[in-house]
């Protein structure tokens, strides 16, 4: 793809796909934008194999590309996969607030689904110090890498 104009409006997914989410996507017959989902590369490691298995067309991008895709009106609908429903909101993976706010600020609807199964001990990257198991900062600098944690998206933000 050599230009943003070549990309059609698509669905955006964030979080680990579930069976229900896959059925929803199939019913829409749309292409899916799969962000990388740092640090653990969930988009690449988990969602893409699931989409391939279900013959759902997709395109991959890094997380920081999403804003530009919203700006260029390339996101039709956002699908957010959450870990747990709490009284104050939804507990989701890192980056969920990033995606929810970008969706809201560009007037894009969000649908919520319970996240698919995630075997977290199979994931190698825990924070920004590594990528795909490869170290990208010096050993002495690892303590200065921000810890990655789940995010609780409050109900008032989700409305």
């Amino acid at each position: 793809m050599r230009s943003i104009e070549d990309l059609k409006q698509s669905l955006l997914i964030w979080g680990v796909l579930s069976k229900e989410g896959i059925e929803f996507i199939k019913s829409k017959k749309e292409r899916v934008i799969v962000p990388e989902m740092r640090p653990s590369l969930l988009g690449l490691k988990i969602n893409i194999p699931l989409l391939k298995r279900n013959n759902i067309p997709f395109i991959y991008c890094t997380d920081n590309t999403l804003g530009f895709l919203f700006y260029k009106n390339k996101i039709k609908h956002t699908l957010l996969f959450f870990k747990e429903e709490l009284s104050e909101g939804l507990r989701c993976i890192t980056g969920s607030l990033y995606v929810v706010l970008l969706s809201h600020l560009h007037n894009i609807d969000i649908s919520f689904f319970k996240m698919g199964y995630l075997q977290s001990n199979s994931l190698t990257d825990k924070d920004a110090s590594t990528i795909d198991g490869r170290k990208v900062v010096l050993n002495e600098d690892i303590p200065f890498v921000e810890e990655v944690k789940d995010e609780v998206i409050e109900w008032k933000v989700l409305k």
Partner: protein
Amino acid sequence: MPLYKSPLLWPIFLKKETIFVLDETLLPFEEKYIEVRKIKESLEVLESMKTRAFGQVLLFFYTCCLEESNHPDSNKEKLIEKVASLFKEKRPTFDFLFLAFILKEGLKRFSSIKETVEFFLKDFDSKRRNRQKKLAEILPPEANILSICNVNGELIYLYEELLNLKKKAFFYICETRPYLQGSRLTFWELRRNNIPCKLICDCQCALLMKEKKINCVVVGADRSTKKGGIINKIGTYTLATLAHFFDMPFYALVQYPQDVDVNKINIEFRPQEEAFMFLSKIYDVEAIYPAFDITPQGLITDFINLQ
């Protein structure tokens, strides 16, 4: 005399007939310089992202010097235009034509490209320091600054200027996928100077803003326009949008704004394989990698100019 240093402040230098280019793709694990003697080699270095940002400016200027030296009888203006055109083919978003204009204007005062380049670059470092001085004055007394990509050592100057004003500073650096300029360059240059900072995944910034760990955003700009919009590393627009939502200032470091519509600037799409940079392999899936995005004027609190 500066207290802090980074090789990224001046990543390329010219010595006799050779350009030495810091290979930024090897950092932080190796500091190696590539030797460039021909325009073909300059273009290879440029295309393969061995250098970027201020490095591109230096590479362009020094390549023009090399060409002048290799072709002493050629028309200097045409030679500059040829180099600009070849550079623009490789990196279409960056404004090499404006750099060519600067050199051609300089030739009205100086007899050679080399003298023009020397004159232009003579005060460049003090201009960058002054720019950070201006920014330091407007940042809060406890500045918790979010930044993306790499502004060639200027955050070190910013830190020094904040300290001079008895202000406190802490930096959060977005890793900046896919080339990881934030992790490999900015975080590294701040850490090696013991400047307080943390590295984050790009998608962590919204939570940090919500938790008020960040109170301002500072970014560079590959292109800037007189009407106020900027083009910068992909991910900049998101930071501006979120900063606006959380009511925090967003400052853009700009140089030589042009009278163009920001939406009409060609956004460079890099080969899709580069979306997988630094992963263990190139995955066989369709991917999209625009190298830059557009941040409109309305999201930018202030422009900190080099002039």
